[in-house]
């Protein structure tokens, strides 16, 4: 039913941004990752601004990636930094 509804909507409404939902979904990660050229970015942005189906998906994926960036990182322990600076000094004195 959903599929039929979507295809009907797709036929009745022009694709926002001149790009259809399937294409936007296929390139969603590349869009969020900043891997697309300016023209593609504009088209996808234009689509997302108007498309009530794609925007929530975009919003969810972007939240997930922001979350990973915040939570996934660990700082190098100060002790390791100290050991490394010492090792490099020793390498230098060895010449």
């Amino acid at each position, binding site marked *: 039913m959903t599929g039929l509804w979507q295809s009907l909507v797709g036929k009745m409404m022009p694709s926002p941004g001149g790009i259809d939902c399937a294409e936007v979904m296929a390139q969603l990660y590349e869009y969020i990752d900043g891997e697309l050229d300016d023209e593609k970015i504009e088209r996808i942005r234009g689509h997302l601004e108007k498309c009530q189906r794609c925007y929530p998906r975009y919003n969810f994926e972007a939240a997930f990636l922001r*979350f990973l960036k915040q*939570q996934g990182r660990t700082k190098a322990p100060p002790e390791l930094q100290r050991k490394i600076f010492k*090792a*490099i000094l020793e390498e230098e004195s060895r010449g």
Partner: protein
Amino acid sequence: MSRQPASKREHFEREALVHLDTLYNVALRLTGNASDAEDLVQDTVTKAYRSWDKYEPGTNCRAWLVTILRNTFINQFRRESRRPSKVEFEAVQEINVFEAIKDRDPEGTFFRFIVDEEVKRAIQDLPEEFRLPVVLSDVEGLSYAEIAEILDLPVGTVKSRLFRGRRRLQQRLYDYALEMGYIRS
């Protein structure tokens, strides 16, 4: 008093050692424990310093260092590792978490309840083929081209591994959130 030109060590410290956190993060995700990660980073930095003459100034130092780290890992650590490095690619059924949750939590607020230790564990448990692209892209912010260079893979392969890795990670965190009651089932 005239200034001395920067020594090799000073140059190395300025250009390379600023990436220590990146090296440590990648090492941690490769080896799975802090002690091996520290050894791996130390070996990497020493090797990098010894071959600093081969580094072309102005090129991507971070990618250069991570490449050395990965090669060092492959040569030293994996030989000793008893963990299987290859995991079946197709074995896990990948569900679309957004589709599963869009009526309950479309903005993914459940992510906020998940503690960072669980996230790190989930990343650690990804098959290595997916884990490295995810760490390099999503934790360290490297571009697809940089990751392709480091892993010596075509950009298209990096892209597909990254996407599948993210999907698996989402699924794992979703399952965890369900289990913990962060999402109504």
